[in-house]
């Protein structure tokens, strides 16, 4: 199954989803597609004529263009997601490296999609990490069993 991960560039989540036999939906694959097939330098800073249309599906024209640009990258991920794993308040997506409004919108859209969703916090101790990995493995196994 295709599992949307948030933070969308997370190494840990991407690795765990793949390790437990599912396909992670991460932002890297969308950036890779744009770089390889359309030769864009720095998506979402460079966009194609189609991208604003995808962005406008989610956010009105008066919303900052950064939100719509990012949403154009997130669109294929959100629309293809069969399930999602979301980590609350990840530090790297705060501040200049992230966009708080896009993050809120993405989280809202994932909840509104009514797909199986696992919400977690990043672990800070060994016990937290055990619970973190155990919950992810149980969630991903339940997806496989549900599919059967």
């Amino acid at each position: 199954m295709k599992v949307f991960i948030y933070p969308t560039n997370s190494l840990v989540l991407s690795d765990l989803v793949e390790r437990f036999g599912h396909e992670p939906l991460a932002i890297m694959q969308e950036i890779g597609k744009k770089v390889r097939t359309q030769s864009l330098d720095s998506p979402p800073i460079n966009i194609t004529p189609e991208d604003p249309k995808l962005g406008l599906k989610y956010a009105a024209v008066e919303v900052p263009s950064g939100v719509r640009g990012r949403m154009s990258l997130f669109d294929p991920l959100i629309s293809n997601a069969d399930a999602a794993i979301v980590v609350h308040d990840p530090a790297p997506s705060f501040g200049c490296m992230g966009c708080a409004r896009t993050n809120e919108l993405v989280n809202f859209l994932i909840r509104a999609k009514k797909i199986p969703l696992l919400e977690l916090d990043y672990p800070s101790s060994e016990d937290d990490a055990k619970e973190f990995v155990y919950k992810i493995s149980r969630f991903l196994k339940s997806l496989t069993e549900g599919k059967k």
Partner: protein
Amino acid sequence: MDTLTKMVVINSEKVLPSDIVIKLYQSKADVMIKETCFGVIVSGERSVVNTLLDEIRKMDPYGIFIKERGLAPGEQYRCRATRRGGARPGFHSIETENKMLPLIAAALKALDKGEIPKQKQRKKKLDVERFKEIIKQTEVS
């Protein structure tokens, strides 16, 4: 050709990036390899890269973490050599998650041993009625 770039982040006591690079060269696969401070970046045909990295993961299943990367190694607009240094986009994310890799590795080991972690008691949010009571009690008449 469907190309794919993947980054291998190493947090292992027994495997070094150079060990992985040697193993990759030994495979004689048609891939581009770059050794980095955190591990290795491998770029090539999707099926070849995936098969190779499945083998690489077996070198230390708990110490090797893999994720896809949008840009191939040495892309001019992201490579620090041409951007006069500084952290490249995505560095901060890896830096943050790299710190928790030992915890994740220990958790994966525990999971393979069949250990079931204790569910932590989460703090419940304060009930509204109880909150009203507290306000009343603390009100200065």
